[in-house]
């Protein structure tokens, strides 16, 4: 198993480097430079030279690329040009929101999508099947930002003053601040140390943080704010997962081993759950892994609609504002996330299908 993981990780490295180089070169191709973006159109040449020197932009492009690669290997992502703060600090503040959003969306997509697909396959060629697939077809055609705005309108305006009204944006209600778990538990952390920053990062997952420290009112507030964006973001993956589950299960139900299982008198429930479902989950797991890109792309739109300061909006601002270090740093994180998720997908193959483990 270990050699399998090692091999998979090593294979991902060329793609990872490729992505970094492409992003680096693409950024350098954006018209206009960070200096005019930061100091304005009328910045003098001298001011720009000083600015470039301060930000390492006076080196030749390939030297910059080398420095960037070296820094990534040493976990140094540089400073944001626009905010004059370490990119790492921006990640600590922005990434947890997007992680929670994407995870919630994926959880909704899987817990609703897989059962829907099973239901449609079990009731094949009935009204239930048709309705489910019609719903799935509409779901994959849904513009995320449109659905988000409609949900916000429905739950914040039409259902206002009802028990099921939900906030239309933001991460927490105004004036609500969660206490980080390390403060709640009275830990003493050295300010600015790597360890302290790690805890700060973990505590910025508000739902997780308030859950483990039992700050229930704040926990519910965070969850209530998360529902609408997560549902909006989940719709397309949900529909895709439902469709794949249905077709995959339908195919498995026609196999000989299902007939054998029935012939030996197994209950229908057991036939589906133990024999058909497990064998039809492989394509489903693959699709779930592939949803990550869709979720990250959708996160830009969802975060814009719900006014959330996450990775997506930060990346969008950085690209349009020519904040090279931020884009480069965030890209590495996204690409690494891709590699890790796909690794998990491959590992789950081994769990679902013992034949793959053997090879």
């Amino acid at each position, binding site marked *: 198993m270990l050699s399998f993981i090692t091999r998979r990780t090593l294979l991902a490295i*060329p*793609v*990872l480097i*490729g*992505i970094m180089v*492409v*992003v680096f070169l*693409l*950024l350098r*191709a*954006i*018209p206009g430079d960070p200096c005019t973006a930061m100091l304005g159109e009328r910045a003098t040449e001298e001011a720009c030279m000083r600015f470039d020197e301060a930000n390492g932009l006076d080196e030749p492009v390939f030297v910059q690329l080398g420095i960037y690669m070296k820094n990534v290997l040493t976990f140094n992502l540089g400073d944001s040009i626009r905010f004059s703060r370490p990119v790492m600090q921006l990640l600590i503040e922005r990434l947890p929101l997007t992680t929670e959003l994407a995870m919630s969306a994926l959880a909704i997509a899987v817990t609703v999508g897989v059962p829907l697909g099973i239901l449609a396959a079990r009731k094949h*060629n009935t009204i239930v099947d048709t309705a489910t*697939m019609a719903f799935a*077809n*509409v779901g*994959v*055609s*849904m*513009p*995320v*930002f*449109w*659905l988000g*705005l*409609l949900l*916000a*309108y429905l739950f*914040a*305006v039409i259902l206002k003053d009802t028990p099921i009204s939900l906030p*239309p944006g933001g991460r927490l209600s105004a004036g609500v601040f969660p206490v980080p778990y390390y403060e709640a538990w009275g830990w003493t952390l050295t300010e600015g140390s790597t360890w302290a920053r790690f805890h700060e990062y973990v505590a910025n997952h508000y739902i997780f943080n308030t859950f483990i420290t039992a700050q229930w009112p704040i926990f519910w507030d965070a969850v209530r704010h998360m529902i609408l964006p997560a549902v909006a973001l989940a719709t397309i993956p949900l529909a895709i997962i439902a469709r794949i589950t249905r077709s995959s299960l339908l195919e498995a139900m026609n196999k000989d081993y299902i007939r054998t299982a029935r012939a030996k008198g197994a209950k229908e429930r057991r036939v589906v759950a133990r024999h058909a479902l497990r064998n039809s989950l492989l394509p489903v797991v693959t699709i779930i892994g592939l949803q*990550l*890109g*869709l979720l*990250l*792309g*959708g996160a*830009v*739109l969802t975060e*814009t*609609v719900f006014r959330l300061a996450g990775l997506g909006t930060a*990346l*969008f601002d950085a*690209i*349009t504002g020519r904040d090279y270090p931020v*884009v480069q740093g965030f*890209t590495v994180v*996204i*690409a690494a996330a*891709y590699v890790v998720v796909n690794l998990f997908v491959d590992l789950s193959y081994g769990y679902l299908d013992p034949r793959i483990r053997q090879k």
Partner: protein
Amino acid sequence: MSTNKTQKTVELLEASAQDANLLTEQPTSQWALTLRRFRGRRSGMIGLGIVALLVIVAIFAPLIAPYPPNEVLIGKEDVGPREKPCVHVLGCDPEKPQHILGTDANVRDEFSRIIYGARVSLTLGFFTVTIALFVGSFLGAVAGYVGGWLDNVIMRIMDVILGFPSLLLAIAIVSVLGPGLRNALIAIAIVSIPAYARVMRAQVLSIKETDFVAASLALGASARQILIHRVVPNALTPLVVLATLGVATAILEAAGLSFLGLGAQPPLAEWGSMLANERHTVFTSPHLVFFPGLAIMITVLGFNLMGDGLRDALDPALNK
């Protein structure tokens, strides 16, 4: 249920006819069979209907739309900005001018703008897919046919493009090229190239090994002739399906880019940017967000259904 049975019977007959050519005097062509199978699929036909309707709307937009898309009605009619829909037959005051989807912030007729928006979205979807289809299948064909290091280089570049969330990559490319509808189109075309390249390459690799290609080679056909006359016609099927579904994705992504302000620019009547311009007023005038989004959804749905129907009709594995 009985229709289902008849359909099954028809399909069985078709299959046996295809096998032995016994039932029909003239052999039915593969395309005629495909067409017949496509017609038998309800969702595919619904998709085709939606797409056909949209094409008609786009072509005859000036006849259908009551106003030009960019006509500002201030001083011409008694309407204000962001007025709610007013349909006379539904009880709206007959004294007031009829705007069945209301007016937008600049006092333009929303319905007319949505009608004209069909032109923008369909053109965009068509051109994006055409570019991606040609570039992608060319690269895939070269990679598959030539093989070796060239194959490696091309496909690794495709991997890198695929290794990045497509909307984020499109955002980055639009930043390089500058915002605008044409550049959004190019960006989306670039991010969708790998899919076509992969499909084409896989097709070329499998067709390359067939006997009829070996025969052509023996007859002295050049590589170009074999690619154009032997490989391309055989690879067309999956590419057509991919292209139809690709139009849906392209329209959805372009709307996303426009929503972020990187695609179509005002005053062009494009659904994504119409929606984006009004997103802050969704709580007071939801109709200006609802209708453009609905238009996007219906269009994307149409192409998705049509693509799925085509795929099912063209898939020989489903012929049983």
